[in-house]
Every structure is written in C-alpha cells, then in structure tokens.
C-alpha cells in the first residue's frame, strides 16, 4: 500500500461560528489576513516536503470560496511542489472539471506540472462539492455529462501530437486544440477519479482509472469498490489490481491511544467547522432525486448525521478516522481494508485546524515509522 499525505491548507483563525452562517461561499474575506496566510502557505509546503523526506507521496486538492481550503488552484501549489520535491508522486485530487469553463486549460496546466516534475504527476478529476455550484456559478444538473465531456477533451488534448484537432461538443467548443507542452508521461499521467456513488464507480471501473473514496466509511466504500469490480466483470475486463482503489480518512498516529485521539480531535476541526446552510449543501440537481426526497423526510443515512455532529467515537467506529497508537491504527486500517476487498492507496488527511506544525510532523513520523512498513508489506 502506498500512503499519501494530504492537507487542505485551511485558514483556521476564524471568529466564533455564531458570527457567521456559512464557512463556505459567502464568508467575507475580510476575515482572512494575507500576512498570516503567507506564513500558512509556506508552512504547508514545508510539511509536504517533510512528507516526501519521510517517504510519503504527496496529495493536493482544491476548493473555492472557503476558509476550509486555501488552494483555489491545485495547479499553482503543485507547480511549487514540482520544483521543491524530487521523488514523491504528486497527486492532484482533483481538478473539478465539471465546473471548469476551459478543459483545455486544465490539460495544459496538468501537462506543465507533469513535465516540470519529470513525470511525477498523478492527475485526479473530481465532480466538485455541492458548495461550489454557487462559488463557480455552475449548474448542478447534468453535471456528469459535462464532467465526462471535459475528461474526453482533456485526454484527447494530452494524447494528440499531430497538430490541432476540432472539438464542438455539447458543453465545450475549441476548434484548434494543440497543447504545448504535452505530458511527460506516456500516454498521459495516471488518472484518478473520486467516486462516491455506485454509478460513478461503474464509469470509473469501465475505464480502469483509480477510484478514490473520501470519508465514505465501511459501507459506502464497500459499495463503491464493489460496483467498480462488478462493472469490470460485466464488461469481461481483467480484475482490477489493488492499486485501482484509494481510501481517504483523517489519520493521526500517537505513541499512545490518548495521544492519537488528541491529534484526531484536532483534525476533526475540518468536520466541525464545516458550517454550511442547506441551500449550499443541496443545490437542486446535485444529489439524486431519491436523496432529496429522503432529506425532506429526514431519513438520509446516518453518515450524513455524523457530519452534522461529529464525534470521535462514531467517526472511528465507521472508519472515517483512524487514530490511536500504531497498533490501533494498523488494526483500524486493516479492518477497513478487509471489509472493502482491499485498497492500494491510503490518502492521509493529516493536518487540519489547530493541529500545529510539530504535531502534524509527529503524526506523520509515527505513521511512517510504526505503521507504514506493515502496510507496504501488503503490496
């Protein structure tokens, strides 16, 4: 198993949450101090470099109009990391391509990072979280059609080397596509896609890309990975290797369980601070009709409630947080691993909120020294 260190680059120095009704979309940026923000950017880049030094891979994501994540452009921060690192694989998970107006620009940026890093880019595509419909002014309906058209255009841009091609699709129009640079890796960087539902898992499985689950817990993850495998079998394609599956959780390893739990409680800031009103969590069309109906009836599955009132015990019980001493964490990861039929990538959300630099580094060190060797042996 490969482990990836991931941080949301949050800006955590916010007023009391009673003072605002949403941390996303509309929180005024007067609460952001660019001088503190500059220190935070440098700190987080330092932490990614330390992750590389320790032997971890690097993961970056992007979000928009939110204090929970100050990377509105994953390509920009990965551009810096491509220069400041030498050996780690560089995963962007991901580019929200259903929301981007210009897929060709994404193809260019990703090719550039791939070349810049001498072929270390792992390129993720995501649909984008519901809060970003307003932030990006993007229509929440029929998003996956737009997503796959953007994907098709990007892959074609990466793999066409004989001059311009024409694209007049339903959503995107480019009559002369001919990107410079082209990607370093042949035919293109590995593609990852976040899959949170069986239907998207089937699409990802059919294409053989890496499917990543974020905080989907035991049952959600099992369904997604299972749908991926089923779809492959239906299409009579080879069984997927473990490296086609990734799981993301909040992870903190301490010397003792207590130290691990204390770190995890600080990571939970990410869930606790996610104060967002319903008009931004559920823009019409983003979620399937059935889940909109369940929301009106108040019968959505418990995992939704867990995000509303996060508690460490319940989060650990459900496999959203792996925390404790090294043995405990190893056992928790293996419980998930065995339950979902195995996975080849652990995406470690290892920094959030008030977890300071030393604590963040210690959590990484403990993981690498005490847990990672046992996980590596799985592959």
């Amino acid at each position: 198993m490969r482990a990836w260190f991931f941080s949301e680059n949050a800006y955590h120095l916010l007023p009391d949450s009673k003072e605002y009704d949403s941390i996303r979309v509309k929180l005024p940026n007067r609460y952001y101090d660019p001088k503190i923000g500059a220190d935070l950017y440098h700190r987080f880049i330092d932490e990614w470099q330390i992750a590389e030094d320790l032997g971890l891979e690097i993961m970056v994501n992007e979000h928009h109009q939110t204090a929970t994540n100050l990377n509105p452009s994953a390509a920009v921060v990965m551009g810096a990391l491509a220069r400041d690192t030498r050996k780690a694989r560089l995963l962007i998970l991901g580019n929200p391509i259903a929301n981007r107006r210009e897929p060709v620009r994404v193809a260019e940026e990703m090719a550039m990072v791939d070349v810049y890093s001498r072929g270390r880019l792992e390129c993720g595509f995501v649909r984008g979280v519901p809060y970003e419909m307003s932030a990006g002014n993007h229509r929440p309906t029929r998003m996956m059609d737009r997503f796959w058209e953007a994907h098709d255009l990007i892959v074609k841009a990466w793999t066409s080397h004989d001059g311009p091609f024409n694209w007049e699709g339903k959503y995107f129009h480019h009559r002369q596509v001919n990107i410079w640079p082209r990607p370093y890796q042949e035919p293109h960087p590995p593609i990852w896609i976040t899959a949170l539902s069986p239907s998207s898992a089937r699409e990802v499985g059919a294409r053989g890309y890496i499917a990543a689950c974020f905080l989907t817990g035991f049952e959600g993850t099992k369904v997604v990975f299972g749908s991926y495998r089923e779809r492959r079998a239906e299409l009579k394609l080879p069984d997927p290797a473990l490296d086609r599956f990734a799981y993301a959780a909040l992870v903190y390893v301490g010397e003792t369980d207590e130290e691990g739990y204390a770190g995890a409680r600080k990571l939970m800031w990410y869930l606790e601070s996610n104060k967002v009103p319903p008009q931004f969590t559920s823009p019409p069309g983003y979620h399937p009709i059935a889940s909109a109906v369940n929301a009106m009836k108040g019968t959505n599955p418990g995992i939704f409630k867990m995000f509303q009132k996060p508690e460490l015990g319940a989060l650990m019980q459900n496999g959203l947080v792996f925390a404790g001493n090294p043995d405990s964490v190893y056992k928790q990861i293996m419980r998930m691993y065995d339950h979902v039929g195995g996975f080849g990538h652990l995406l470690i959300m290892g920094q959030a909120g008030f977890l300071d630099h030393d604590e963040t580094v210690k959590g990484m060190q403990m993981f690498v020294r005490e847990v990672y060797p046992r996980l590596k042996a799985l592959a």
Partner: protein
Amino acid sequence: MATNVTQTGWMSVHGVRLEIVERGQGQPILWLHGEEGLDPGAPFLDMLAAHGSVLAPSHPGFGHSPDVASIDTVDDLSYLYLDVLAERNLRNVTVVGSSLGGWIAAEMAVKCHDRFSGLVLVAPLGIKVGDRETRDIPDIFALPPDEVARLQYRDPARVAVDHSALSDDQLTVIARNREATALYAWEPYFHNPKLRQWLHRITLPTLLLWGADDRFVTAAYYGDAFRSAIPGARFETVAGAGHFPHIEEPAAFVERVSGFMSERRG
C-alpha cells in the same frame, strides 16, 4: 360529478412525453406553470376551466414529465409549446404563463404568435433589466428556503408545506420541480440576455399581471421594464398577492384573465 381533480393525462409531441391537465370547454387556454410546478388540484385550474378549455402541461423534468436530454433551455421549451399548439391544431389560444412560465410564453410570442389570440404574462421572468452588478432577481439558489418563500408569497405561512404529510410521490415531484428549475434557469440566471430587445415583436393583445405585493420581482421595477418593452401591453395588479397570484388570490386572478379573454371575444 365525482371526478378526481388531481388526475392528469399524457400527450406526446415529436417524441416528447408531457404530463398534462385538460379541463373545461370552449376557447383554448394554454397554462404554462412556473418554478412551483403544476399542481393538478390547485383551485385556480378549475376556476379557469369555467372560461375555456385549459391545457396545462408539466414542462419536461417537472411533475411526472420525463427529462429530455435534448431539452435544457427555455428556448427549447418555447419551440416545444409552439409544436404543441400546432400538433393540436389550436387557434385563438390565450397563452398564460407565470414566472418561469411567463418567460416561456414571452419566448414563444417573439418567435410566432399566429395561433395566439392573447398573451397573459403573470410576473414573468426572462429579461435583464439593470446593469451587470444589479441582481434583478433574488438568487433562490443562494438564499435560505424561508427567505425565498418570504420573497415569493405575500403570506408564506398560508402556503407552507408540511413535508412529513406528503407521499413519496409528492415529495419526488417537489424535488423534480426544483431540479428542473435549476436546469432551465441556472445560467444566465432566469433570463435570456437577448429577449428584451425582441419583445417589441409581441404585437398581439398582452396583459401583464402582477401581484401587488410581489417582493421577488416588483411591479415598479421588473414589471415596468416588461411593460415598456412590449408595445401596448396593459398592466394590472392583483391585490393581496405576491409573486404567484394564481395561488394566493385564485379568484381575482381568474377574473382578470377571463375579463381579458372576453374582450378578445367581443
């Protein structure tokens, strides 16, 4: 007499299946619903059917009408309903549209109103009035649901819906109506930047009806912009109603529409 007032039927036009309500006899009336969708049990439908033959479709994606992959704009809907009039060979039709439905009706009328006898636009959306930094229409997708109701209804408490009392089918219709509204109205937001410049093509008798207490798009601002863009349009308000007068003041609403129709007959 024991008719089921919530019963709907179906029609097809060029392969598009539409759930419809058909009620009444006489002069044809096409009712184009707004964001709230088509409630077959709404009192105004029966009242309207006393004055003519009402045809009221659920737009694709609304109610039980299936989504249609190739239909995703109000422009598409306007052609669809021109096709419906042709398919049924209806003439002298009074086309009545509310809010989003008013936008559809206006888009139809600028294209071709040969089959119309008159047009009633009930607090229609669809045009850009102010400058680029003026939010002409409140952003329903970024406001708390209670605030949207407060803007759209004079008395939101009277129309409040208890979701726990509804069937799964009724809740599904609510969810589909919201989703279809986002499909047609997300961007440009509830308008076609080009529509206003072509409204002068509406040369048939036109009534603009506005709830006197419409806080969503006011008569003084948005209504006035429509009036000045459609030559000769008459402007009337319905007292005691917000953005959806057919829901809040159905009798007064139908009285205005039937009055307008009887002038055409005369």
